Structures are given as C-alpha cells and as structure tokens.
C-alpha cells in the first residue's frame, strides 16, 4: 500500500482517538465502499453485507482506543471486517460452492499436462475481451468457497501483500501463498473452459 495512504490513515487514527466528530465521517468516506465490497465478496448478499458493514464501523469506532499499531490501520480494519463476516457465515446455510479440486491441473505419470492446453493468452490482450475477462473473473470468483475466495480478494483484488493478508486472516504466509495459488489455478482453468466454449460456437 502506498506511503500516502499510510499518512492519511495516521492522521485519521489520531482524530478518531481524540473523538473528533468529523473523523467518523471521514472514516466512512474512506472505507465504506471497500468494507461493503469486501463484505459482499464474503457474504454474497446485500442485506448481510450491509449489517456486517455497520458492525464493522461500530467495532472500529469503539475499539480505536485499543488499536496498538502493530499492523497498518487499514489492515486492522480489514481484519475486523473479515472476522465479522466469517462469524456471520458460521451457522448459516452455506450456498453451493464449487469444489476446487475439479479445476486443478492434471498430470500424466510422466509429469506431462494431461488435459489439452490452449494458449489463449494473446487473444485476451485485446481490449474488448479484457472487460469480459474481468466480468468472468468476478463471476467465477463468486463460485469459490470462502477459504479461497477471501484470500484471493484480499491479495489480488485489494492488493494486500502475502504478509498483510496473513495478518488479516490469522494464517501463515505459506498458507496464504498456497490458497492464493490454488485460487489462481482455478480461475485459469475456468477461463480456459469458458474461452474454449466460446470459440467452439
């Protein structure tokens, strides 16, 4: 994350601690979009995401006095958001998600790729296809189970480093790398299938 962001957050943090009323409005302005969207990516429906977002802001505001500064302010906020959302998921009937194993690359005994390999990488560099690719990535991401989806959103969408994501989720860095890698492999496979089908028309 950029140095400017760090500085803004420092200033905001100070004002929040002092109980400056404008600070809360500023907190909302800076984070409501990100928190709501992060909640949406975990909870997948607006009502839950909205309530979770309210809970997150309430927690942040009330606990800002106890924030130690061991991590960046924004990663602390994301952590609160992830925990709030995951707690909500517990005990709720889970939506159907895909089994990621089906999308992992398969190798022969000799270590060669067992499935046919199309190289569609050059094609998607064209602009029109780019936008569609973005849409398809979002769609396929939604179908992943939270275990992989949350890591993917934090790392590849929100841009957190492996170390930051590890802190937010309470996982080890190797665990983050592994889940991220599998999420990417899944996406690659989904995109391949989608693009192959499109071409067959």
């Amino acid at each position: 994350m950029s140095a400017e962001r760090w500085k803004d957050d420092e200033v905001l943090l100070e004002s929040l601690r002092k109980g400056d009323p404008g600070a809360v409005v500023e907190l909302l302005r800076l984070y409501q979009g990100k928190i709501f969207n992060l909640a949406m990516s975990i909870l997948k429906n607006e009502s839950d995401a909205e309530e979770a977002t309210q809970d997150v802001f309430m927690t942040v505001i009330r606990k800002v006095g106890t924030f130690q500064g061991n991590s960046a302010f924004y990663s602390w906020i994301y952590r609160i958001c992830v925990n709030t959302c995951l707690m909500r998921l517990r005990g709720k009937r889970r939506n159907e998600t895909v089994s990621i194993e089906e999308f992992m690359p398969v190798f022969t005994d000799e270590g060669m790729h067992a499935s046919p390999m199309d190289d569609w990488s050059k094609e998607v560099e064209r602009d029109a296809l780019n936008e569609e690719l973005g849409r398809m990535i979002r769609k396929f991401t939604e179908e992943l189970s939270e275990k992989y989806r949350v890591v993917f959103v934090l790392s590849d969408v929100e841009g957190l480093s492996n170390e930051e994501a590890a802190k937010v989720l309470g996982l080890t860095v190797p665990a983050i790398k592994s889940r991220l890698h599998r999420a990417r492999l899944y996406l690659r496979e989904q995109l391949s299938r989608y693009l192959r089908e499109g071409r067959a028309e």
Partner: protein
Amino acid sequence: MLADYCNGSMDPRLREELDGHLSRCEPCMAFTNTFRATCDGTRKLRETIEYAIPDEVRERLEAFVRSSALKYPEKMREYRDQIERDRREKVADLVGAAAAGKLSSATALLVESHCAACPDCSGYIDASRKTGTPPAGDPPEGIQSHLIALMQALPPGEEFFLA
C-alpha cells in the same frame, strides 16, 4: 513458484532452466502463458474496480454512524427493526404493483423468470393477481427473502413501478 516466475522474482538460474523447458514444451508454455494472463486479468480488475455501494445503503450507513446506535448498542435492535420494516414495506409495494399489473418491464421480466423456477413465489404472485390485491399480512419468510433478492437485482436507481 509459478507466481515468482510471472512477477519476475524467481532466482535467475532457476528461471533459465524453466525458460529452457518452456521453449521445448508447448503444453507447459501454454499453461504458463494462460496462468500469467489470468494474473494480469485480475490485476487489471483491481485497477478498474469501483467500490460501488448502493445509495440507500450508503445513506443508512451514514445515518447509523450519526445516530445514537453507536453509543447505545441496545438501540441497534430498534435501528435494525426499522430497516426490516422498510424492507417489508417495499416487498408489499412490489407485490401490490404485480397484482395491479403495474410493474416496470425490467421488473416484470425478473419476476417472471424467478416465478418460472419457484412454485411458492409463483403461487403467491398468481393469487395476488387473481384478486387484484396482495393477501393480507406479510408473505411467508421464504417468499419474502426471494422478493427482496429480486428487488436487489434491479439496476441501481431503477424503480419497479411503471412510470
């Protein structure tokens, strides 16, 4: 390892070895290229992502933050009940509009395609249409949550009534 290769942080000797293999092995080359394209795709997504938050959610959030719900958590229940009441009212309005044949075409389409797959909602909406008015009281919980989801599927800002 693949991630390191794609973002340039792989050990140079290892990279040389991998490059050598890739030049001789088409499937692996295709795999690596498509993997890299996937990662590029998500990076571009990050650059263009808009953190859209629906207007009414944003307004409620701001009202919440300014309200005493923050200081007095017991007021949260009251606050949430109010939101729940607002939603129920909207659902009742939707069913009323459906009963009177006054849905916008986008909404009618959404309702139709949902009802084609959902006998409960279909039965409820049909009954309303026959009498011209929705049944008294709230719809059953399942139907209620389907109709809420349906309204949330409308493009932001779109009203469900015919102009």
